[in-house]
């Protein structure tokens, strides 16, 4: 699998937030049809890396390569236009809008004909499709009509996951998509991740749950203090090795 060229790659990215160096030359690779887990301690720079690779932030230095060509994302729209979707750690949903509106946020369907050209929404169609997608992805909601802020944390997270999966065609970033989920929902999300992978999409999973990482990921990349410090094939890796790499007890020469 590591023989195929990466679909999306970060090369030596740096990113400062004021005086904080979130990324110090971080590299990362994701391949089509593969689940790669991105792990690291709190503050290692995982979310910062995801934000750079999904166009939310612009890196200070370094290169992003997509499909073999260098790219610059100036906004999330750029990344989305290339089929890259993200579940953010803070979810980035609009709490006052209902799940269907959130699913179609920024991609609202308009009515056919003149009304549509005037900007009139096709709310019924969006609701119908949202209901169908939630059902397909196993998202359980008490009602598709409540504002998302009234849902439980896990339900909100499920909606955010569904939104990314529905629209992604090349890469999905999931920044701790299972953090607030119960056992059943967590299993559903992991199933969804596998299914998306089998469709040939690159899935990047960020998680602090090591058994979960080893269960679903094909590869694991470890970030520490804003740098990649280790890479593993999930099949022949143990939780101890991952923890060792995360804490600095174990280092790989060629990882950065």
């Amino acid at each position, binding site marked *: 699998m590591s023989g195929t060229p990466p679909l999306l790659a970060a090369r030596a990215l740096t990113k400062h937030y004021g005086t904080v160096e979130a990324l110090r030359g971080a590299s990362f690779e994701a391949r089509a049809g593969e689940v790669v887990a991105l792990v690291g301690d709190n503050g290692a720079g995982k979310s910062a890396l995801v934000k750079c690779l999904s166009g939310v932030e612009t890196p200070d230095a370094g290169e992003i390569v997509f499909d073999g060509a260098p790219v610059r994302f100036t*906004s*999330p729209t750029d990344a989305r236009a290339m089929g890259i979707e993200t579940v953010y750690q803070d979810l980035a949903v609009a709490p*006052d809008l209902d799940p269907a509106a959130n699913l179609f946020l920024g*991609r609202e369907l*308009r009515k056919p004909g003149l009304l549509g050209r005037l900007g009139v929404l096709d709310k019924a169609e969006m609701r119908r499709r949202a209901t169908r997608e939630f*059902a397909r992805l*196993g998202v359980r909601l008490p*009602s598709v009509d409540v*504002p998302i802020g009234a849902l439980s944390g896990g339900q909100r997270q499920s909606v955010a996951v569904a939104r990314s999966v529905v629209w992604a065609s090349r890469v999905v970033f999931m920044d701790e998509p299972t953090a607030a989920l119960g056992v059943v929902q967590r299993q559903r999300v992991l199933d969804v991740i596998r*299914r998306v992978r089998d469709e040939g999409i690159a899935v990047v999973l960020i998680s602090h749950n090591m058994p979960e990482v080893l269960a679903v990921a094909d590869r694991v990349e470890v970030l520490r203090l804003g740098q990649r410090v280790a890479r593993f094939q999930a099949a022949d890796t143990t939780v101890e090795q991952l923890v060792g790499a995360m804490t600095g007890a174990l280092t790989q020469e060629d990882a950065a």
Partner: protein
Amino acid sequence: MTTAKQSVVDTPEEGDDPSRPAAWQRLRSANTLWIGLVLLALCVVFGALRPEAFLTLFTAQTLLIEASVLLVLAVGMTFVIITAGIDLSVGSVLVFAGVVGAKTMEALSPGGDATDAGWGVIAAGLVVSLLGGGAWGLVNGLLIARARIPALIVTLGSFGAALGAAQLITDGVDVRTVPSALANTLGSGTSLGVVPNLVLLAVAVTVLGDLVLRTTRFGRHTYAIGSNAEAARRAGIAVTRHLVLVYLLVGLLAGLAGFMSLAYFRTTTISGHSTDNLNAIAAVVLGGTSLFGGLGSVLGTVIGVFIPAVLTKGFVILHVQAFWQPIAVSVVLVAAVWFDQVRRRARNRS
């Protein structure tokens, strides 16, 4: 995954039209409902106490006319507040727009007296009023959305600056020659025998505003930005551009309101709009629109405009001292905001 065949979403019952507003929506607008009931109760009380004075065509007409200008301002304010913004400048922008419109009509008339001006001159005055209002809106929007200065400060600045500019242009003296053709049609004319034209215009603006907010993508993005601007940005919504457009819209509506005020009062009323901004904000908030953004409706705003108006009328008819009106409005206003807070806290429990 095999769950596809199970019913994992509580789907609407058979034959239910998915676009039909469900029970929650009615619950959600409960605040609007409650405030609507207050308005109804006020009308009933005043009507019962003095039916011969309150329940008359004349009272209804004057009530509506006096509310028209404020309603146009408040419709724009609804959009702004739904984006979690505020616009304190609307009253001053109204005055400015009225002044530049009136001055243009005078300049285009022989001898600088616009009283007998024709429709061509009036149209020019309207365009200049709209441009004047729109320009302030654009400046507000750019400073707020692009330069990221808090809306409260930006519009406090233009609140002072627009009024100052209007006074500079006129030397502080009201323009008194307003075309009779304008005053007699838009200002005091009626259609269908009983409906004041000013009211018709305000209704048209309100209906349009309601449709844009409820049914269009522009409206949806307005809610989304107020609900979570960063989420909107990440979802690919051009947040900066949208906010500039919203402030431009409220500026244009203030310009239109300035022209309406000109037609109604037959003068620029420079010193008469210092509390329009607060009245518009109060109306919007009374109507259930949240100052925190993301929630609100034009229908609520309509109700919110009429509560103070009905109170004023009722107090006059009942010979209650007019000074009670602002006190009563303030009590209802604070209660409405308190309700909103409680509801939000209950909802965002998790």
